[in-house]
């Protein structure tokens, strides 16, 4: 039954910007803390206080827009969105109505199977966050039945960008892919921490369904209260099922806001559109319109790192790295940047990938220091890869050298030369090691001759040990076979 229908989904995200101070005052922009300790006359809306825009927040907005090829207009302005709510100190929110900082743009993203998708952006605009209400006396923290409410204004005035997406998304998986793309892009750019659990990313989904091929959209419901990507996925799935069931049952989907109930796994009606507010937007008279200097925009563009989707295409298509490993790299921007630099020097993406996701990541995990912050420079790793590729050292030695680099820094070549770790490929020298090992392990020779093939591995190991790891293992194996056969 579900296959007859197509879902149409548009996502609106609120993302808290990672600035040192709040949007319109000097209070720290930090999560948590004792209630009402990060406040001042401005963010408490005391009489007579005035907002002053945070220049850094505007720069981060421009970077966010540029990352998605949005248009950055020459002029922008703030507007007041008027409505009463106890956690909104001024009873209006400074937001942007008809002249947002960015217009249009496209979010390119990928699905777990590597399929590339895109979703157009309507706009990204800048506003301020509200405080947080806590409802007490009802037992479950809900407003219904509570006897009083407490408000914490620490979050009030934190810069918030609202990303409005076009209804280009067709499934719950795509919704998650889209959100992951936003998240990894904002993290890469340093625009936001994007922590759903701390509320620095909050999103609503507008969901409707229609028969495949239908020219018009169905009636949409707006889904709220989703606090993880998993819950976004599940809420959308559940809502698609609900709407299809309504239609199949001969009913009509009504336009409303619905809340996701994580525990029950369903959405429930919160309010219908008839109760919608008239926000009485008008230009914020306490702020002057923003004139965006082209030179500033170009400076921001020039300083921007590659966006994750650009890496995704390069890694999968040029380097032939798997979607899973690419995603792993791209989701760790400093590591991806480190990897990019290593490859730029040594031009051996496969080997670089093995080191970066393998031994380097293991060393990083064991020590607790992020891989890209350690003493191993991209130059040193590139050199190590070059030594390995040239068979100057074998992979076992390479591991050791990497461990030394991790512990003390320095250059790979320097360590190999200082410690005489270069691989021994001289058959004469290796023959001596082999003879010694065979003499000391007569028993094993007998076993091998009796057909126990895996004894050879042990003997190779013994030779490597005797050579302190430097012998070329391929030569060792060949010589062992030759010399045992000759006995």
């Amino acid at each position, binding site marked *: 039954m579900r296959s007859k229908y197509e879902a149409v989904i548009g996502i609106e995200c609120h993302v808290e910007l990672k600035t040192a101070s709040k949007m319109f005052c000097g209070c720290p922009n930090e999560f948590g803390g004792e209630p009402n300790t990060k406040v001042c006359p401005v963010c408490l809306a005391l009489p007579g206080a*005035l907002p002053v825009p945070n220049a850094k927040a505007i720069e981060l907005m421009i970077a966010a827009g540029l990352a998605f090829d949005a248009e950055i207009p020459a002029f922008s302005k703030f507007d007041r969105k*008027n409505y009463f709510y106890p956690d909104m100190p001024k009873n209006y929110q400074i937001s942007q109505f008809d002249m947002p900082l960015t217009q249009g743009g496209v979010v390119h993203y990928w699905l777990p199977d590597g399929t590339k998708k895109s979703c157009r952006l309507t706009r990204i605009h800048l506003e301020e966050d509200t405080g947080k209400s806590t409802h007490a006396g009802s037992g479950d923290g809900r407003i219904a039945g509570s006897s009083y409410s407490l408000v914490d204004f620490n979050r009030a005035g934190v810069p918030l960008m609202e990303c409005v997406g076009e209804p280009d998304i067709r499934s719950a998986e795509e919704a998650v892919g889209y959100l992951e793309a936003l998240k990894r892009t904002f993290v890469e750019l340093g625009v936001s921490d994007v922590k759903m659990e701390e509320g620095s990313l909050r999103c609503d989904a507008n969901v409707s369904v229609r028969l495949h091929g239908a020219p018009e959209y169905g009636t949409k419901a707006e889904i709220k209260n989703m606090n993880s990507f998993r819950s976004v996925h599940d809420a959308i799935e559940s809502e698609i099922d609900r709407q299809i069931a309504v239609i199949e049952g001969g009913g009509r989907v009504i336009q409303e806001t619905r809340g996701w109930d994580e525990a029950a796994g369903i959405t429930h009606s919160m309010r219908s559109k008839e109760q919608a507010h*008239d926000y009485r937007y*008008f230009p914020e*008279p*306490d702020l002057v319109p923003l004139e965006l200097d082209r030179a500033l925009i170009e400076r921001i563009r020039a300083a921007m790192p590659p966006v994750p989707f650009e890496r995704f295409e390069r890694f999968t298509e040029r380097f032939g790295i798997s979607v899973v490993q690419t995603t792993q790299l791209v989701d760790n921007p400093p590591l991806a940047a480190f990897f990019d630099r290593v490859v730029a020097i040594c031009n051996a993406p496969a080997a670089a990938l093995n080191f970066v996701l393998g031994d380097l990541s293991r060393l990083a995990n064991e020590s607790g220091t992020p891989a890209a912050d350690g003493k191993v420079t991209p130059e040193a790793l590139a050199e190590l890869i070059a030594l390995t590729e040239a068979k100057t050292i074998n992979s076992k030695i390479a591991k050791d050298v990497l461990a030394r680099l991790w512990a003390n820094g320095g250059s790979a070549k320097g360590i190999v030369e200082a410690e005489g770790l270069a691989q021994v490929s001289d058959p004469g020298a290796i023959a001596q090691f082999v003879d010694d090992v065979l003499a000391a392990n007569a028993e094993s020779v007998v076993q091998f001759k009796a057909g126990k093939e895996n004894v050879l591995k042990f003997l190779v190991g013994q030779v490597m040990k005797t050579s302190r790891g430097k012998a070329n293992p391929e030569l060792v194996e060949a010589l062992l076979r030759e010399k045992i056969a000759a006995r």
Partner: protein
Amino acid sequence: MDPVRASAREIARAVNAREVSALEITETMIPHVAAVDEHLGAYLTLTPELMREHARRVDARVAAGESLPLAGVPAAIKDNMCLLGTRTTCASKILEHWIAPYTGTAVERLLAAGALPIGKTNMDEFAMGSSGENSALGKTKNPYDLDRVPGGSSAGSAAAVGGFAATISTGSDTGGSIREPAAFCNVVGFKPTYGRVSRYGLIAFASSLDQIGPFARTVEDAALAYDAMGGYDPMDSTSVDLPLQLTAGHLREELRGVRVGIVKEFATSDLAPDVATAYERAYADLAALGAELVEVELPTAKYGLSTYYLIAPAECSSNLARFDGVRYGLRVDGADVGEMYEKTRAAGFGPEVKRRILIGTYALSSGYYDAYYVKAQKARTRIADDFRRAFENCDVIASPAASSPAFAFNAKSDPYSMYLMDYYTIPVSLAGLPSLSIPCGSALPEGGSRPMPLGLQLASPLFTERALLGYAHAYEAATQHAAKLAPVQMVTS
């Protein structure tokens, strides 16, 4: 030197020269002001201890060799300006007991220049009104006839200076709230260009129009107070980042070569005969000082009132939303938060404030926004354009500051007749221009027994404060109208 009657310049000179201490001035002023204010009602709060504290600080600074432009000058602060630790009410029940936890920029600068805070002055609630009668917390009388209004909204600040209960004071002007009460109380009231004085700490009425300015008994004192308060403030995004041109040392004595615009549409025939005669005389006096009188046209000025009464209420409906009983000020409990809001605001705001919130909410509502708010903004641009064109032919525009001299209490019962008092000041405010009212004679008002002061409004192009105060100074020097009237004797000294 009598600190009650002396000018700010004289007081500051004497204090800087250590002929008298700021504390001595303070100890003279405190009992005098208390006695006068029994009759005048200019103050909502007197701050004698704070005044002494500032006086000691000024004396210490002077003793350390500093010279302060307003050293020891007793100053009254309008009660919509935050002053740390003092009650700041906007003359509203909703803020009746609110103590400001910070000091606004203009007041901070005034005090830093050596001024001494006498107290906080009464006003029309949230600066909405033209008579002072909209105060929810007190009745201020006109020092020149205690049966008449002092004008508004800066009622107490004008009355205090006019009644010698302060040397200078701060006012705020949105559509005439400095100039009209200045005219009624025989003092100089100066509204600088929008953006010249920081609004940080000024409790907003209409953000795009509100501007702080001084009251004084002389142009020079107004200039000194403006020089102290004005200038860019990073805390106010709408304050102008231009170097402040100091005015006090640059005043002039004549008007040779100055073209004074007389507005064709502001015919003196609209005024009472006595009043008309006084203004015609004032224009002639300007000419006698060497000015060339030129007729200028402001064809859109007649739309000023209706434009203003859309824009200002729209902004106030939003600005006053924060008074909700949640964080500070009056709270009247209700069954739920919505009822708490309703009861708090019903009890906390007076009728004129409620009227303007309603008008503004309506004007911004979906479906009406374009027809009212957007159209009013377009009209505002046209009015500003008219002034720009007029200033191609003149340097300053002269007009009445108010439609009549001070009227009796309760004389203007319908709001519109009250709004008409600001007919001449509102277009200037909409254009953001610097302007002032200066005493220009008197007239016997309707039903009055004493001649009441009149004010001449002078308005000049944006950011020409120095020139404007210069013209006013020349007129003042030649006419000395303020000295021709004396306030009612309120205390026997």
